[in-house]
């Protein structure tokens, strides 16, 4: 039986202080978007955000512990077996764990469209490896992302950063130029990104 307890899933510390537990990636689910979250040091369990860009409807189900959600400025305290369904993607939502054992399952997607895996699942998974200098691990995660989403500009860009940090100048430049060709926005990011410092003097660096 392909099962996992929430506590057995990977723990990926996110910048906002919450811990992402990749559910979709763990099981290789392709049909829908789902993830779980547990609190980090800050107590945050669902980052404050809207879904305006992706147009997602989201459900946040408390699996364990107590969580104070703030949706559209309203505060609601929920326990196990309670959920909040945010229909309107433009509403701001956030969750703070009131107990250390809290766990939240999120399910979301854009109505009327097939589920598409988000690049952030891979870039965020790779990020702790990059910061810790575990370049092989970071490469493995990002390559997995490229297999799922061939040509994805944010994944190509992050892979370029890994290669630049690892001293692989040729690979880094090729990946970076591929990312910029696919999405112009990465030209501006590349200009100031510390991770790319080692290759910025190269004439092939996108400007």
């Amino acid at each position: 039986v392909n099962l996992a307890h929430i506590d057995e899933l990977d723990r990926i510390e996110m910048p906002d202080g919450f811990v992402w537990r990749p559910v979709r990636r763990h099981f290789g689910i392709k049909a829908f978007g789902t993830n779980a979250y547990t609190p980090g040091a800050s107590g945050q369990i669902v980052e404050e955000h809207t879904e305006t860009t992706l147009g997602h409807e989201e459900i946040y189900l408390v699996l364990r512990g107590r969580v104070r959600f703030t949706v559209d400025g309203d505060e609601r305290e929920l326990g196990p077996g309670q959920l909040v369904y945010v229909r309107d993607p433009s509403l701001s939502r956030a969750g703070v764990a009131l107990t250390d054992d809290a766990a939240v399952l999120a399910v979301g997607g854009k109505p009327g469209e097939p589920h598409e895996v988000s690049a952030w699942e891979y870039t965020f998974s790779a990020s702790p490896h990059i910061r810790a200098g575990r370049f092989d691990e970071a490469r493995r995660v990002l390559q997995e992302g490229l297999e799922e989403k061939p040509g994805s500009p944010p994944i190509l860009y992050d892979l370029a950063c890994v290669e630049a940090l690892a001293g692989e100048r040729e690979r880094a430049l090729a990946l970076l130029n591929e990312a910029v060709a696919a999405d112009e926005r990465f030209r501006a990011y590349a200009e100031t990104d510390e991770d790319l410092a080692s290759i910025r003097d190269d004439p092939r660096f996108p400007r």
Partner: protein
Amino acid sequence: VSDGYEILTLSEVEAFPHREGTNLIPVRHTLGFRPAGVNAWKADAGGQVMPPHEEDSGNEELYVVVQGRASFTVGEETADAPAGTLVFVPPQVFRSATAEEDGTIVFVVGGSIGEAFNAGGWEAFSIADWYRQEGRIDEARAIMAQLIAEQPDYWAVHYNAGCFESLAGNPDSAFEHLRRAKELDTEGASAEYFREDSDLDPLRDDPRLEELLG
């Protein structure tokens, strides 16, 4: 409650008896969630959590034990699943679960790979069917009408409305819905149901069914 969001307590939602002794908490139907199939099942110790079944090709499902404890059978394997356990079942694999504790609740998320989620409204049909058995025909018919209004071009909702009227003893109305289902089902997905669905048994002797099948 604002228009933009809604809070739901699974244990407080009215659960409906579904097939094989199961009890459905119709989450998606209650909320109107659209991106994926979401529902929950509740059972006491020894009870069937969800009906034993396989999903069609392409349909993935994730079961999450929210409260209590369940024993899952997937394929030929069995596993203990306390609260906080997630069980993934790929398409076309047999799955069943029984509750190991009273008040067990299992949440389920489902969808089809590469396809936009299409509710089809089986939960609503199950609720309508329960109302029909309870003699609450008007409430049942209102649910069917709402389903058709939501997805007027989807054959399955018309088909289900036909089944409902068949079981409710209104053959004229049943055939109206079934004809519409047949028209909309351009890929012939309904043929098997028309032939084998016991919901249509009250119509089997009616020449109009033969006409539709022909």
